[in-house]
């Protein structure tokens, strides 16, 4: 079973994402911000990360740059999932190493499509 980390400061979003991803046969770990996520990634790198942009302590962009510098940190497929939907934000996320980008609100079909796009399912 593949491991997916859901990183979002909203417990509601984490809950919705967990339900969708568990339905896609992923094992889920959650993190409330970039710092928590980075600590968890140092312990065990997940196969996939669903990543929010705006979070306290360390935002998604800073987390992603730090993740990609970790040993093996290039392996997890990172799907940004955020309300930031302008081209500049998307381009910045891709430049930092994101593999895909989901604009909130999302549903199961969109998550599946994006995870399929990056070869996670």
């Amino acid at each position, binding site marked *: 079973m593949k491991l997916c980390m859901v990183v979002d400061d909203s417990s509601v979003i984490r809950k919705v994402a967990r339900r969708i991803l568990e339905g896609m046969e992923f094992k889920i770990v959650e993190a409330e911000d970039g710092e928590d996520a980075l600590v968890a990634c140092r312990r065990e790198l997940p196969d996939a990360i669903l990543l929010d942009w705006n979070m306290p302590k360390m935002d998604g962009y800073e987390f992603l740059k730090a993740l990609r510098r970790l040993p093996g940190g290039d392996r997890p497929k990172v799907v940004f999932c955020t309300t930031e*939907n302008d*081209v500049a934000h*998307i*381009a910045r996320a*891709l430049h930092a190493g994101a593999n895909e980008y*989901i*604009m909130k609100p999302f549903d199961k079909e*969109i998550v599946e*499509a994006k995870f399929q796009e990056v070869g996670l399912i």
Partner: protein
Amino acid sequence: MTPSDYEYLRKLLKARSGLVLSAEKHYLVESRLLPVARKAGLSNLTGLVARLRAPDAERLTVEVVEAMTTNESLFFRDKVPFDHFRDTIMPALLAARAASRRIRIWCAAAATGQEPYTLAMCLKEMGKELRGWRIEIVATDLSTEVLARAKSGIYSQFEVQRGLSVMMLIKYFSQVGEAWQIAPEIRGMVKFAPLNLLNDFSHLGKFDLVFCRNVLIYFDQATKIDVLERIADVTERDGYLVLGGAETVMGLTKRFRPVADKRGLYRQPDGVEPEGNVIPFSPVRADAAVVAAD
């Protein structure tokens, strides 16, 4: 809605669009036609049918037919047909049309345009390989309303996220408020026109590739056979036909046969030659505007 109202709508839709509604599709009719009824100032479908039966109901009839036949679409829908397009169809056509350097593609049920635009983006991705080629994409649909949307090339955030990778999104779309509009260079590669598949379409000329996906499933057996035969008439002898995943030519026509190991892809039997044989190119073409792919 009374049984007689439903029967009237069934007959009307069959005659005007080929759509075959089974007896248990009341829910579909109600969900699609109640908004049409309300727009016309009517409170229910019985009122709508009464209005349709009256003289001068052509405009309302068109609205009813369009509401029932408009289906959702998405970019790169089902993915596999576009893999076939990139990996099988285009290499074969580029070899077979090396002399004329012209390829004509028909999307026979273009709906809101995602399918023809997906093909156009695939062609753009082929880049230099198509330099000097003239590739025309003709996209038709029964509904003039959805074609107007298709021509605008504007899609909601929800629509662009389904099937379209973020790389393709930022490469070929720009933001228009909360929506996204496909690039003029992609829009310019597709020519949209209204067309009812029940009517003659020989005026469109011959095509090297026909995409006719998720349409035949709504037709009865006789209509499927008729449409497939006429598609065969407008398909080059070595051309291709792509059908939806739930559709087939088996038991309907012998003028197409499945391409081995390529689900949904069909060719005319005499178009499949042993390797190394050159299939003669037919010069019969429509005088339609041709749009360069590059």
